[in-house]
């Protein structure tokens, strides 16, 4: 079990290539630990909602209706409320996505530095259409709004990693670096 300090329990990377799926989130020691530590950081139970949504995605790779129901129960909220919050945020995957969730920024600074072409190049090299999971389950490519690294356009985020100064030509290099064992960018 990964040991996490209570101060940062609600700030763990939740988009990962490796998933450790569980049917019930809070029935093993890790799940209960995360829940209890999160609850200890907010004066109201509801404060732990985003951390727990993130945790479900970290474990399962996406946010299933069952996970949302379990979170609702743990925090004394209605499932409808939890769904209404989860759907507000774009990073919670409401259905399964590829192991590599590739977000290509096409916002203004990347837009003027060939962002759209980089996006097209990712679609081509992964053989997918926008938002779809590739046949081998590896990739989902989407266009993203500003990723907050505009000076290093075009910016691409893959799960919990950033790739900067990506051009349509360097897309294959980025994809190659995703495989385990490859050095960090």
């Amino acid at each position: 079990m990964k040991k996490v300090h209570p101060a940062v329990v609600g700030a763990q990377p939740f988009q990962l290539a490796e998933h450790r799926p569980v049917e019930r989130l809070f029935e093993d020691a890790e799940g209960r630990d995360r829940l209890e530590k999160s609850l200890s950081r907010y004066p109201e139970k509801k404060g732990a909602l985003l951390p727990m949504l993130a945790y479900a995605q970290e474990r399962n790779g996406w946010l299933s209706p069952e996970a949302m129901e379990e979170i609702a129960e743990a925090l004394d909220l209605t499932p409808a409320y939890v769904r209404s919050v989860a759907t507000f945020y774009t990073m919670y995957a409401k259905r399964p996505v590829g192991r590599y969730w590739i977000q290509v920024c096409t916002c203004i600074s990347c837009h003027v530095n060939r962002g759209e072409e980089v996006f097209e190049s990712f679609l081509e090299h992964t053989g997918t259409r926008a938002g779809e999971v590739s046949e081998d389950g590896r990739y989902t490519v989407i266009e993203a709004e500003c990723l907050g690294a505009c000076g290093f356009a075009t910016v691409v985020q893959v799960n919990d990693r950033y790739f900067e100064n990506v051009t349509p030509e360097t897309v294959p290099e980025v994809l190659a670096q995703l495989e385990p064992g490859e050095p960090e960018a």
Partner: protein
Amino acid sequence: MGFPHDHDLEIGTILSRHFGDPKARELDTWLTYGGYEGLKQAVEMDPGEITTIVKDSGLRGRGGAGFPTGLKWSFMPQEKSGPHYLCCNADESEPGAFKDREILRWVPHLLIEGCLIAARAIRAEHAYIYVRGEYFPFTSILNDAVVEAYEAGYIGRDILGSGWDCDLTVHIGAGAYIAGEETGLMSSLTGGRAEPKIKPPFPAQSGVFGKPTTVNNVETLAAVPMILINGADWYRQWGTEKSPGTKLWCCSGHLVRPGNYELELGVPLKDVIYDVCGGAPDGKKIKAVIPGGSSTAMLTADELDVPSTYEGLQEAGSSLGTASPIVLNEDTNIVRAMRRIADFYAHESCGQCVQCREGTSWVAKILKRIEDGDGRLSDLDTLYDLCEQLTGRTICVLADSVVFPLRSSLDKFRDEYEALIGGRA
């Protein structure tokens, strides 16, 4: 070697001096750089004394609006009737802005120290750092620093043996620009949709979890330790009466040397663009600059000789915003660039206000039509009308944000719109 570039105009205060130096993230090294000296002073001081120094320094909020920081702190109740909270806004999502992430990833202990000093000044017992979800790699660096600081007694119970307690929690969002608006941030932190709320009540009266709260930007808080250590006059050696100090710039778009630079407030904008960043690559001319991030009014290449202060850019009809100039070269299709900006605001509208929800999408649709060659001259009137309807009528200023670049593009680059329209009435 500077990071990622070096320039004579750069001022390397503790804010940016250690960018690019991974050792600065570690507490042991950070202490040899003077880390936590400000906190040592702060725990011996009254909250009011800290606030006075920050007030005198003239430090203004670096999140975009430029509100005086010490004044904001003084709005917090002096007598406590319950918990107070500090929220550090690390949601950084304004297109063009990428400075807070440099602070998170190179000098996380500086931010932690700033949060604690501010928390002491506003009598808060808990500080939350709300980081945008996408910033996983930088949040992980911050997380490590927070755990280290807890273990060394800089955060938590009886800080530095002073008897003062303060907790700090890192909290991440999940992809919503509007969570950067301070009331949206508070809604999100309490486990809600990041929907802004009407003010009053102001955060200092009823903020996160219904308690008095102060929201400050990362860069604002990171500037506090050096001000406390060196004094208000020291900080005022840079900048102007109304815009003292240094500012972390984020320069992007068509530039030879894009990136982050710490510069004195008041440097002429044209020097930032041409001298510091080397102008546009490939010998191209510059057509327009959006000086303060995508929500500020465009300036033409002829309008760049202005001092980069809050007041200077305001006089020039734009705004310093987050000091994040986006540079567009002579080949840029202004209508297409403006459409891409409008798409952003349409996508990020939280949908609570009809004017904003409908208006921003409407703007994006009309611009797309013009871009695709299907526009009419009457569309330009409609766009001006929409500018009126999107100004000052909504819960937050996201709606106004699209108006600044839009109106300025219509006023200054009308010929480009007309060329695409080709005379259709």
